[in-house]
């Protein structure tokens, strides 16, 4: 197979583009996909200070690297989750990248700074680990951005992530979530802007980006995620994609173009009901936000 751009031997094939790429042209392809996403969805403005949520995995490290290549003012934020045999290693990869390129990495350690780890906290609070983890990440990423004077939080959600979440939301017709499933959530009401610049890249592409760019990342999967519903959705979508390349892209971008506006009024109405959490000041629909309730249960 030849590279679509330069006709040199290809090292990676991307079936939904019906194309192969050599190393340099593939790295160029990834940067251009991110640049187009940022422009199309008006994610970032000149001078914005960007905080990238970095897990040590392929997506967040690829995102950090690409945003740096595109000359954005971007620091990393690593959240230690206290998951035995996983979190220590993930931090090593995040720090190694930051050291290698001379980038600033902000660190928060959930057990030390908040008082619980994900396995113990989720068990005590009787929440699914991935749910407690996601809630903690959303809260602490936003708080770190607001406290640190950042305009934007960028996360490494890729096309596969977004298609799988959409698949789950459609299966259950979770209309309030469908109304918020956007690649950009604007700032305001105590929230930093949130952007997902990788939504045009599949996770096979972000992994390939890291391999070809020489970025070491944590290949091992989080042990808490094994067998979760999200992985089941991804497996189903990959089975469809193998038979019909481009299906995931058509599903997600078709939703954004044709269906998403139908659900935004419900999400907007919920935004109008937001008030400040009585404990931490974060916007919430209740008196106390979900994260403070989780902390209370997980640390008692």
């Amino acid at each position, binding site marked *: *197979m030849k590279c679509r751009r330069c006709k040199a031997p290809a*090292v990676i094939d991307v079936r939904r583009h019906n194309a192969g790429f050599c190393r340099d042209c593939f790295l160029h392809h990834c940067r251009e996909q991110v640049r187009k996403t940022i422009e199309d969805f008006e994610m970032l403005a000149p001078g914005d200070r960007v905080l990238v949520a970095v897990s040590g995995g392929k997506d967040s490290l690829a995102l950090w690297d690409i945003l740096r290549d595109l000359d954005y003012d971007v620091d990393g934020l690593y959240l230690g989750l206290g998951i035995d045999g996983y979190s220590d290693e993930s931090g090593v990869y995040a720090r190694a990248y930051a050291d290698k390129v001379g980038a600033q990495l902000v660190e928060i350690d959930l057990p030390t700074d908040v008082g619980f780890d994900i396995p113990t906290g989720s068990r005590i609070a009787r929440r699914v680990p991935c749910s407690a983890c996601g809630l903690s990440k959303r809260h602490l990423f936003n708080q770190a951005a607001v406290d640190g004077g950042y305009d934007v939080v960028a996360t490494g959600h890729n096309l596969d992530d977004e298609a799988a979440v959409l698949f789950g939301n459609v299966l259950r017709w979770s209309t309030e979530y469908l109304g918020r499933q956007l690649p950009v959530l604007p700032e305001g009401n105590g929230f930093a802007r949130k952007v997902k610049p990788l939504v045009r890249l599949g996770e*096979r592409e972000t992994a390939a980006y890291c391999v070809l760019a020489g970025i070491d990342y944590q290949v*091992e*999967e*989080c042990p808490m*995620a094994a067998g979760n519903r999200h992985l089941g959705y*991804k497996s189903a979508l990959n089975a469809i994609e193998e038979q019909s390349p481009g299906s995931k892209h058509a599903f997600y971008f078709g939703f954004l173009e044709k269906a998403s506006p139908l659900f935004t009024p419900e999400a907007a109405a919920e935004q109008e009901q937001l008030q400040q959490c009585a404990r931490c000041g974060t916007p919430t629909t209740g008196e106390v936000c979900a994260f403070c309730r989780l902390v209370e249960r997980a640390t008692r």
Partner: protein
Amino acid sequence: MVLRNPRREIDMHGPMRVHALLERLEINRESVLVIRGDTLVTGDVQLSDDDQVEIRPVVSGGCA
């Protein structure tokens, strides 16, 4: 040949194309990268007996 998550090693006899290898192992080609030596290879590449090959999963399970 090394497979990851969980890590295990198997021997396969070539010559065999990457696509055929994944088909034989019943692995969805959208879910992995195939690395020969230290570089990626496309599905049409012929693998030989002597090649050291890693099949690396790319699917992450977090749902934040």
